[in-house]
């Protein structure tokens, strides 16, 4: 994304809309007077497209290059939710996680899923930060979800990402994996401590568990107790798959 200086009238209305603060002022000095221009910092911009979609610029001075080169295109893929990921054909962050679990049954009562979204909320992160997490997941014995666009960039045996992507910055990217249920709380404690100590950016950690047969939240009760010792508090709100897809045709 860039600002066409021939069109920009320097109204600055676009400045606050950028989620990562990439739009700013660049001072320019002439011999006699002081001036400025509005610019998008190429390194900070994550190509999320908000500035252009909001149509804040009456002059249409905010523009996108015709073809964003690789690996920079990954910024758009992981930051612009209107972008459909090539590896998974899913919009947004490119993963279905538990949203379709009543069809795919990836998360069972024997395992627990984790979703670590690096860069969220609204901070952004480099893939090198995500790599710290993916390598830690390997060390913790996590089994990566295969249907996630991060996996296409990664050596699953080590968690290492492709070298050329490490300096690309995105709004967020998600590492998803499962562990056996009896190891889940230990993994969570290690992850929280690791991320607090090692990440340059921030991350949200979420936990996916099958409900009990009666719909009960047994694992949430465990999290509440465990969190008191390990420095986190589960939110009172969350996301629940209602199992409606599994009803079709009388399937259990």
């Amino acid at each position, binding site marked *: 994304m860039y600002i066409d200086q021939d069109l920009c009238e320097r109204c600055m209305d676009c400045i606050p809309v950028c989620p990562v603060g990439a739009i700013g002022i660049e001072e320019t000095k002439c011999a006699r007077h002081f001036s400025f221009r509005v610019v998008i910092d190429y390194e900070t911009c994550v190509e999320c497209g908000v500035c252009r979609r909001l149509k804040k610029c009456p002059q249409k001075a905010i523009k996108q290059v015709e073809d964003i080169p690789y690996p920079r295109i990954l910024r758009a893929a992981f930051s612009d939710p209107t972008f459909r990921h090539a590896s998974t054909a899913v919009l947004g962050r490119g993963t279905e996680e538990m949203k379709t679990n009543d069809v795919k049954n990836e998360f069972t009562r024997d395992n627990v899923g984790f979703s670590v979204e690096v860069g969220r909320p609204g901070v952004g992160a480099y893939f090198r930060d995500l790599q710290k997490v993916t390598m830690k997941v390997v060390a913790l014995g996590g089994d990566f979800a295969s249907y996630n666009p991060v996996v296409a960039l990664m050596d699953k045996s080590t968690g290492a990402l492709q070298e050329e992507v490490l300096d690309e910055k995105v709004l967020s990217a998600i590492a998803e994996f499962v562990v056996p249920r009896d190891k889940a709380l230990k993994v969570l404690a290690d992850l929280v401590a690791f991320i607090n100590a090692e990440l340059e950016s921030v991350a949200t950690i979420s*936990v996916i568990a099958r409900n009990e047969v009666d719909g009960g939240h047994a694992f949430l009760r465990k999290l509440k107790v465990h969190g008191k010792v390990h420095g986190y508090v589960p939110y009172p709100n969350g996301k629940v798959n*209602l199992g409606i897809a599994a009803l079709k045709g009388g399937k259990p």
Partner: protein
Amino acid sequence: MTHTLNRRGLDNGRPGEEICVLSMIHYQDRNEETAEAMRELARTIIAYGPNNIMGSSVGATPEQIIESAAASGVITAVFTDKDTVGRLVREIKTKDPGISVVLSGLFSDIHDICEYAGLTEHTSNYAVGISGNAALLPDHITLEIATQCGHGLVSRHYIQHVACRIAEGKMTAREGAELLSKPCVCGIVNKKRTEEILLKMAELTSFTEGHEINYAVRQKRKFS
């Protein structure tokens, strides 16, 4: 809607304030039959009058929203009334669309809705907070709006800019909430709750004096 679970500010003391509804077709099940089921499901959701819905930020008509849901295999909306969602879910269950439906909100609200609709929770996604370099985060009130967009598209600077405009009497909180709902392409910013938060922000001097709040306005003053 991957991260609606990480929304800040919901409280068991204020039940029914906000429930997001999402439906998604599993990628291996995308075909004309499921696309038609999604059309019908989108029609049903629209009929129950959500506070916000996918496509509304770009001014899409109901027909465009329905077709977009069928083409993309996903629809998202947010409601501000638990009873309405209960009736909606019961109707969806009766229609048996064969595609996944997810609710996001207080677990106690979702449980009540499940009971009303004759369902049991299948799989849950729990948030355990934000870890890492917390110094990079904005204040907790700004986060209550920013986290309403799971994709992180509602800028903290924009939120603070809008709050300042409200404090200056240059726009209403309702207009501000409308503006802040636009970056969220999933249409799940709760405009009613956002309006209430903006009013709180506008009243706080910490947001209207000396804060990073009005970044653009300060820049304008500096250079004009």
